[in-house]
């Protein structure tokens, strides 16, 4: 065999080997389901439909689409989402969304019922709200704010009239008279609402409380799911948590969330 013929044979062998040794395509993972909707309203409706079909995971995704993608909230949305989470036995998260629904609509009886059932399931005693809390929860914070604003300006207008005239018009006097008790009551209610702004809910069972904001630090205690805590500080993905039983420490931020959703 001549030199060129040997080379030709060699290159033919290499080509054949390489064509046999070509990399086989990897096994592609199954595509994750994608949930899209043209609007929050549509996502809400699709979530309801998925719930009716007992596809709770899909329902949750559609409801969360309203919150995360469309940045829309409503009391029925959080309530429906809470029911969905409850069906998946994620009771801590369910409690959080029932509380959010009640924050937006304190008089939503369904959310109150759902919250009570969930807390009963978790064997968490339901604390009777104090006077201030009852007062604050009788109306939504927005209504209290409007009441406070109306009464404040009524009082100011009345005082201004008194400054210039000895008598004020009957309408303004009436408004001021009504505002006189409304202003302090609404101020108290708003104060109580503000007190709730740092309240959070533990989402997972046995959420660890670290002595320092680090996953490797010592765990001082574990908090049960749906425990109501107060969140004060934030550091490196950890939140400083104060529970009612004087347990304090750093908890991973993924394990606890405030009822109030902070504005991004």
């Amino acid at each position: 065999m001549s030199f060129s013929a040997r080379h030709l044979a060699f290159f033919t062998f290499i080509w054949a080997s390489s064509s046999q040794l070509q990399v086989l395509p990897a096994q592609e993972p199954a595509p994750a389901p994608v949930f899209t909707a043209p609007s929050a309203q549509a996502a809400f409706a699709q979530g309801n439909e998925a719930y009716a079909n007992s596809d709770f995971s899909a329902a949750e995704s559609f409801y969360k689409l309203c919150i995360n993608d469309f940045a829309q909230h409503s009391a029925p949305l959080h309530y429906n989402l809470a029911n969905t989470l409850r069906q998946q036995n994620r009771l801590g998260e369910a409690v959080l969304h029932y509380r959010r629904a009640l924050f937006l609509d304190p008089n939503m009886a369904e959310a109150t019922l759902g919250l009570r059932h969930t807390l009963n399931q978790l064997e968490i005693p339901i604390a009777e709200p104090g006077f201030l809390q009852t007062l604050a929860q009788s109306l939504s914070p927005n209504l209290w704010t409007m009441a406070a604003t109306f009464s404040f300006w009524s009082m100011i207008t009345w005082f201004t009239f008194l400054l210039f005239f000895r008598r004020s018009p009957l309408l303004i006097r009436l408004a001021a008279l009504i505002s006189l008790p409304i202003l302090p009551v609404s101020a108290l209610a708003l104060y109580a609402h503000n007190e709730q702004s740092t309240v959070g809910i533990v989402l997972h069972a046995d959420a660890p409380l670290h002595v320092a904001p680090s996953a490797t630090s010592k765990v001082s205690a574990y908090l049960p799911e749906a425990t109501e805590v107060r969140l004060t500080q934030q550091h490196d993905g950890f939140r400083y948590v104060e529970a009612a039983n004087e347990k304090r420490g750093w908890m991973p931020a993924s394990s606890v969330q405030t009822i109030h959703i902070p504005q991004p």
Partner: protein
Amino acid sequence: MDPIIYKQLFKWFIPLFLLSALNLSAQQPPITVRADFQPAVVSIGRMTQYVLTVEGSGENVAGKLPTPDGLEISNTPATGRQFSFVNGVQTATFTYSFQVRPQRTGRFQMPSWEVRVGERSFTVPEATLLVEEPGEEERTMLFMRLENVPEQPFVGEIIPADLVLYIREDVYAQTDPRIGKPQSDADAFTIEEPPPDATARRRSRVDGLSYITTIWPVTLTPIKSGSQTLSFSVDLVLQVPRRRSGGLFNDPFFGPSLFREQQQMTAHTGDISLSIRDLPAANRPDSFSGAVGDFRLTNRLDRNQAELGEPLTLTLQLTGSGNFPRIAAPNLDFGSQWRVYPPKINFAPSDARGITGTLTMEYLLLPQDSATEFVPAIKWSFFHPENARYVSLETEALPVRITGELPSAPTPGRPDALSSNTNRPDSATAPNVNTLPLFADPGTWHHDFRPLHQRPLFWLAQLIPASLLLGWVCLQRQRLRRAADPRSTFLRMADKRVRKAASEAREAFRTNNARAALDAFRRALQFSCARHFPALQKPESLTLAEIESLYASKLQHLPETPRQVMREVFETCDLYEFGGHQNLSPDSLEKLARQLDETLRAFNRSFPS
């Protein structure tokens, strides 16, 4: 004396007096700066003041105060000022008093230093302070001791000591002293501060003298071995006998001074040296974790029967006296038969210092094996400082009966959470789980979860009612101001009368009532002119001649036609009033009616309000 001499004296004295007064007022007082210690001789423990006096200037004073070794000088002086008027010269004296606390006895020299008074520099002269050992009188007046301290305590031992301030009874009775908070200097000790209400006061006798003592309970814990020192001091204000300045009466023979002065003083314990012993390394048990004192240990279970996976509560109680704050809960290792969770710890002190009491530790135990028959005994050790040896305690093993089997898929985690998980009904049996209806309508959407009052837009919107109200207030203020101004009142009245008269004239012209129309027309013109001269009492009595004389300059700018109309109106009115009845022709009346508005507009332009 001869009156001529008086005259001569007056003649010379008054100019001389005026001259000297002028001369004196022209003099600028010289600026002097001096400094001294007040008092210049003090006993150790007493405070004095370094007083800088600037005389003759009220300008700013600046400089760097030297700090001689052994003197602690405050940087915040108390300032005082004084103005005097001597021989016609005003002198301002400013004093700056710095608190000085001597640290030791001896003679201290405050060196001269530069001070700037306004733009000029001055040298502050040296000042000397003599700090002496307290005399017998002062030594017995006030002192402080740390009592009930063992000579050789162990590291970690709790020492319930008393810090006692002695003030002689006669001094105490006359001063009602103001006593501060004790300060400590102890690197090798931890010191628990006494609660504010723990301070006691009682009477005692030392060397035959009566004292009122103030007692602070302090709890010391040595943290370093070897020879260690600590000291305490407390600041107080007392009325003390004034030091005699010297001379004949500065003799103990004459007894203490009758005069008293308020003094800020410091009582020191001095350096207290203690020999701290380390805990013996020999025979130290494995279960020793730093407890020093005298303790008893008990254990109990909340019940002696449980099912697998059902938590039991094991309570350990440590009773006695010692360093409870430093005691760590024992780490229980009960093997694979039990899962033990971190305890809940509670300490109930039975004394004010927290030295004696009961430490309760509640462990949650999860049985892992039904063959378990008892909760194992617990070993724990402490060091007994009085006996200088370690003591090991061991509780009894507690019998328990475990029944049942572990759930097939045990949930990891804490027992309370676990128990709730295991007891958690599934969705099929949960009460009303599936009966809660879903909302088909999402209701009102909220883009912002924050309440209204936490949004910036809400606060911005408040500017609308605020500005409306502010605008209204401004209008009202302006209206009130105008109402209070007689000129503006008159002008408004005149305008109103002009409008009213014009309206009446129009009505009269319409009904062909010439007399009334001309009368109203004239009134309108009179009030139009009167706006330029508000001092007029009765504008309706203005005559044509008065208008032409008073407002000649204004009338020059008036076009000819309105002037003619005015004359015609006034003259016709006069004829009506004084010249008997005269009817105007309908043409003249119609012409006047047409000219009414034009004339009044022309007058308005010429006689603006």
